[in-house]
């Protein structure tokens, strides 16, 4: 290499560019004058967000909250009436902020912003939709080694029970709408695993779904 190598100023902390003639190559940064990274707060508590709680007067009365003047809050809420809510923010169990306000909603069962709280969402009873009953046989199920049916189930009706060797999947009969997706997707082709109406194998059904 006869051409002179020339390093370009680079904002990258680890790499820099070198120009040789008309060629540009990248190499690890050799001088120590790497640009400093702007320090940002390293506060780990900011990593996960904490939801605020919104309590009704009954809930506050039932379980007094530490760190606030509960009797005063209760009387404040009583002044507003049944629509009074206590907004409570206690990320690590300690109350940082609280506020009494009047719930503006007219239709109280709809959350603000039409948000759905996933853990409180109860599955609908869709058992009336299904024409066949589905049942997973513990003996055939691969348990947590597989779990394909649970992932594929559109109604979230299949749950893993137990852990490790003895684990198996179970179908919630109320949530199952009988769509056959688990039966089609089963890695064991539902051979001795998923029973439909108590049967493990039905050539007519197989022909219908697999075209066999």
């Amino acid at each position, binding site marked *: 290499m006869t051409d002179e190598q020339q390093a370009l100023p680079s904002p990258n902390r680890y790499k820099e560019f070198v120009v040789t003639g008309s060629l540009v190559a990248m190499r690890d940064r050799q001088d120590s004058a790497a640009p400093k990274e702007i320090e940002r707060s390293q506060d780990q508590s900011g990593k996960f967000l904490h939801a605020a709680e919104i309590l009704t007067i009954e809930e506050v009365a039932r379980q007094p909250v530490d760190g606030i003047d509960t009797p005063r809050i209760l009387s404040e809420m009583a002044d507003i009436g049944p629509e009074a809510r206590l907004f409570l923010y206690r990320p690590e169990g300690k109350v940082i*902020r609280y506020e009494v306000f009047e719930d503006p909603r007219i239709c109280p069962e*709809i959350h603000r912003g039409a948000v759905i709280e996933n853990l409180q969402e109860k599955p609908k009873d869709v058992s009336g939709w299904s024409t066949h009953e589905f049942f997973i046989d513990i003996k055939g199920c691969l348990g947590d080694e597989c779990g394909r049916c649970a992932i594929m189930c559109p109604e979230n009706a299949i749950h893993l029970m137990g852990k490790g060797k003895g684990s198996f999947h179970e179908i919630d009969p109320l949530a199952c709408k009988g769509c056959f997706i688990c039966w089609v997707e089963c890695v064991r082709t539902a051979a001795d695993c998923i029973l439909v109406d108590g049967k493990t194998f039905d050539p007519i059904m197989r022909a219908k779904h697999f075209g066999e």
Partner: protein
Amino acid sequence: MATVLAGNGAAAWGFRLSRVQCYPYYPITPSTACSQQISRWVNDGAMEAVTINAESEHSAASQIITAGKSVRAGTATSSKGLLYMIEVLENAAGGGVPCGLYIGNRATGAPINIWADNSDAYAMRDSGVIQIFAADAQEALDNIIQGYRIAEDLRVRLPFAVNLRGFTGTHAYEGVEIPKQEEVDRYLAPFVPIYPLFAPEKPVTYGAMLSAYPYRRHKRNQMAALSHASEVALKSGREFAEKLGRSYGLFEWIGDEKAKLVVALLGESACAGEVVTRHLQGKEGIPGVALLKIRLFSPFPAKEIAQALHQAGTKALVVLDEGLHHGGVLPPLAQRVATAIHLHLGGQGPKVASVIGGLGGSEVRQDHFQLMFNLADNIAEGKPYRPEPYWLDIDEDPIFAEREDQVSPKLWKKWGEIWKKQKRKEKFCAPIPPDAHEIRIYSRAGQGAITSAVGFTGAGIQNGYQLLTVPAFGSERRGAIITTDTLINFHKERKIRSFTRAWDVVILYDDTILQSPEHQVLEGLKEGGALLVNSSRLSVKKIREILNANEERVKVFTVPAGEISQRLGLGHLNMPMLGALHKVYEKVPFKTALSYYEKHVPRPREVSLESIKQGFAETSDQEVKKVKKERRLSVSQDFLDWRPEDHSQESWPSALEEVQL
């Protein structure tokens, strides 16, 4: 002390002081500078936030919605960018996400027009966003802080938008009080999400599909929350006054308490109306007048406005709209006001006339407000008026017409009877004497006129005056002639934010502007006003000859600013011209101004300061003894006189031989 900021800079401060944590943006004129400033602060570490370079406004809006679920988020946009955001902004409102938008209001094409009107804000009025209108840079800053307060209130939880008129608001430099961070922190508590994303203890789904029954119930809730915003805005405006010293209501009533005639409007144009209202107040033969400057447009404070009009005993109300409602009966603001009056006052309310003006950057001037008050007076007297909008500044369709041949014949058939009965009254329309000093700079784009005018504004504000600098922006290319206007107001308590266009000083950054056929530099210059020309080749006498003006008409000053900056190696003209301005205009003393420039001139500081001083020293209204030979290319007079549209000359006048010397 007030800091010199443009509307965009003030808005950026609003976001910074509100401690916005996420700021995605896709810049668009005229709100670009706000995003620019914030991304610079974030890069410098002055502001702890995440900025995202979005790939479109649609993405930027989607990102503030997503971010706004968990942290405080904001963005800025304008015009078509806002229209592109509207599609997702409905999700922000429906999802109850309290994020913030700053909008530099601008026309929406076609045809393309980058200048101001309220079309974009009107287009978003049905998206469920709280809409606040600011009238100047200070209000933009304050309203963004208050906007977060209103939007995050537990009874509201909705997105908000702060609107400021493009250019005359967003690009006008003026003194802005930047509150201290601690003061704002005391007013605006940190953001707390109700339903954050990524909260392990409460996972949620936003924007799920809802069928008719829950959907209509949700929309009922959403409307209830939005209607609370007006009450919350009033409360937080009061608290803002307590904690930060400037009070805000749902609207501002400027003028007489018992105003028979009222003009209602939104935003920055009110500044010209304020001057007119103050002028007309208490004049003989004029009943009480007032300006109704509406701050909260959505949710519209219908009841409060109707009450205020009722208490004042208003007889006639003229509503100015800077945007259209295509196919509507009245434009959006007029429609809201008229509905409010109809519902809350019925037949007892004032008569409402609608005027459309200020479209696509048209200025709503002081004389327009005089016409509107005049119209209101005629209506109050019981004269007939149009049941459809009037238009401002359309020669074929004026508000008042003296003669039939003055107007479009089509319209005379329709409105002739009304025109005959409506009279223009001198007591309303007599010109308003200027109450402030005004300076106009003609320069070529890129010469730095804005920089020097902004410097001068800062020096004037330090001197205890109120200054305002409004540069003209447009489709100029580098080298085109543009104007920059500065207003100096000596009243401390009285806001003047509107130009009368009677110049005390006119400045030319380039002596060739004297010969520009499109620019009559003496037009509007007061009798005996000053003209400052940057020239080392033209003498004062020669300039008088070119302008055909005697010493009573104009005081002519020259300064060889080009030479000074060349000598000092500065490369631009604005600093010597700034010094020269102080020689010509002595109300802002040079000595006190220097103390400001020492801290604020652009780099290289020493050279800039030196050129300001030399510019001041070398400005003269005398014949300069040794007129130096022109240092640039010597070209023939033919060359200078030639214009592309000039067909009398057969060919391009060849000056090449002379140039080759």
